[in-house]
């Protein structure tokens, strides 16, 4: 028996290797997710002491009619569409810069990482402060260029822009981290071969770096997309979804419905929608990853 465990067949080995991961998933997320989905079929409000009538798909119908839901979905998608490519480009740029042959690399790499190490909520607060009409350094820098300080966080478009910028700043770090590691795995000899083949720096980037980096890019994109769809802390701390609900995201809507309104059934339903959205968007990436594997 022991020998069998030491040299298991591929299938047994796979089962053994995957067991801890799935056990943890089962323990920590399966029950919660099951409960979440279960709750979405009930009109479950904290007020009212928990006797929740079964309402079938009514919550789902309500969500689809909810202006706030569509507004939040739109904001979320917008933020995702802006920040995911934004973070990718910026992260890639940073990773490439950090991968240059410096003698001491750690200051550069540390710089790469710091934004990510700054706790999310505090990053939002700090940037909210940067964009503050009076005390922010952004307006301070621009003071000569604009007659009147811009109220960045009080104008819907500027607010979204500021939020996106903050998210990009914060998450490009995560991107860069993964991409930098990917860069380090590309054998130098490929660049040599490409050099000899006559590829310019840009062509080497396109023909060697990008394709060889693709697995890492896809991984980074998957998670960046998922977290972008769950964007919460930064708009929450920067604008509270304001002005009005111009910057309210799905996650904020869910938070509001569960914590502020105590409407568990409805917020569960929203979460299911968010899950579906995430799934739909990441399905494309996942397919790619699976085909690579």
């Amino acid at each position: 028996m022991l020998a069998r465990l030491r040299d298991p067949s591929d299938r047994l080995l796979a089962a053994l290797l995957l067991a801890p991961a799935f056990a943890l998933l089962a323990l920590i997320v399966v029950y919660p997710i099951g409960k979440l989905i279960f709750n979405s079929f009930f009109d479950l409000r904290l007020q009212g002491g928990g006797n929740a009538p079964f309402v079938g798909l009514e919550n789902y119908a309500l969500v689809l009619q909810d202006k706030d839901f569509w507004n939040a979905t739109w904001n979320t998608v917008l933020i995702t569409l802006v920040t995911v490519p934004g973070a990718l480009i910026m992260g890639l740029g940073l990773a490439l810069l950090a991968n240059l042959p410096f003698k001491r690399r750690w200051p550069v790499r540390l710089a790469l990482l710091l934004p990510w190490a700054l706790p999310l909520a505090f990053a939002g607060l700090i940037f909210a402060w940067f964009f503050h009409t009076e005390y922010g350094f952004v307006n301070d820098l621009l003071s000569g260029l604009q007659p009147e300080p811009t109220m960045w966080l009080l104008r819907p478009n500027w607010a979204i822009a500021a939020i996106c910028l903050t998210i990009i700043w914060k998450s490009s770090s995560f991107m860069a981290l993964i991409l930098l590691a990917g860069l380090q795995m590309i054998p130098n000899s490929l660049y040599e071969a490409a050099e000899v083949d006559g590829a310019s720096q840009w062509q080497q980037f396109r023909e060697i770096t990008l394709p060889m980096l693709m697995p890492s890019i896809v991984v980074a994109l998957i998670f960046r997309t998922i977290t972008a769809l769950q964007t919460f802390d930064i708009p929450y701390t920067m604008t509270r979804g304001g002005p009005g609900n111009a910057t309210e995201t799905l996650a904020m809507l869910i938070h509001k419905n569960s914590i502020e309104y105590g409407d568990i059934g409805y917020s569960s339903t929203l979460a299911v929608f968010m899950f579906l959205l995430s799934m739909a968007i990441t399905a494309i990436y996942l397919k790619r990853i699976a085909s690579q594997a």
Partner: protein
Amino acid sequence: QQTTLRVFSGGQNQRPDLMRQLFDKYQAANPGVKIEIETGGATSELQRQYLSTVLNAKDSAIDVFMIDVVNPAQYFSSGWVEPLNAYVGEPASVMAPYLPVYASANVVDGKIAALPAFADSMFMYYRKDLLAKHGIAEPKTWDELAAASKKIMAAEGNPALQGLSIQGAPIEGAVCTFLLPYWSQGKEFNDAAGKMTLDKVAAAKGLQGWLGLVDQGVMKKNIAEVKTGDTVNEFKAGQVVFAINWGFAWDRFQGDKDSTVQGKVGVMPLPAVAGGKSATCIGGWQWAVSAFSKSKAEAAKLVRYMSSPDSAKFLAVQGSLMPVYPQTYTDADVVKAVPWFKDAAAVVVAGKSRPKSERYGEVSDVIRTTTSAVLARTKTPAEGVDEIENRLRRVMR
């Protein structure tokens, strides 16, 4: 037999240090009880988040907790707080000694949902020195306040000086920002049963009033960005003539090392609209017993003690926390320790409670978000009021 009671007492604002002292006294008097304090997140938001997780999971780890004055109805209807009638008696008698606003805020459906811990209220702080210097009396109406501000600002010539600072960011304070001018026109937001009685014209007028103050330069343009702490800091820095803020601000103005306005601060009732009457928003904290507690009787006893006149006096003397009993304001020891309470008393007594609703979270969210949006000028006051009405009609039936 030893009972351990775990008390959740929010953050610094709930003064766990003082509460501890009271608990120690209580423990000394009741050797069978041991009290542990748990401090949660520092803001009411974080506390709400924590409490809703724990209570939603029907966890018995907490026996007693503090809730905001707006919350008893909500927590009661969620089944999270234990009705105290069985332990302390019927509301009519138990609640009578308290300030009326607190008495009513804590009784839901004839049940005592919680007992008041200490009071709070929105005050109008002002710069006594500046008013005196320019020979201006305390303004009684908003128009007078605007005029006074403009006069002082012009005379001082300090570009950083603001006439009035209020909270325009979408935080709980903005609910008061909405209600204050509305109330001061003599209107009510809701009736006794909690049904909404919004006078849209008055509400829009109230909001328009704020925007008017912005246009006149009395308030700053980015008022929709201002949070409670900003008002405090700017006032402390001597950049504000009039400031609306909670009671805690007094200590900050007078006590903080870096305050430039020590001894120059006055408190007055809020101005009214011409022909209306002054009104303010009350706040404050209540003691509640968890519905999932395993030692409810002991917990109720503790709560009763914490809400007693003696405790109120202790908190007022030691921590300048405002008493929930009217007579405590005039107690000699209290007046000696906290002289400004004599000015405060009038304001608190006239204070009004924010709408009492079991769905207060939603009510507050709608009001503060819309108010802030109007102040940021992404909506007109009329649109904002319409939205508030539309959204809350269903909620406040």
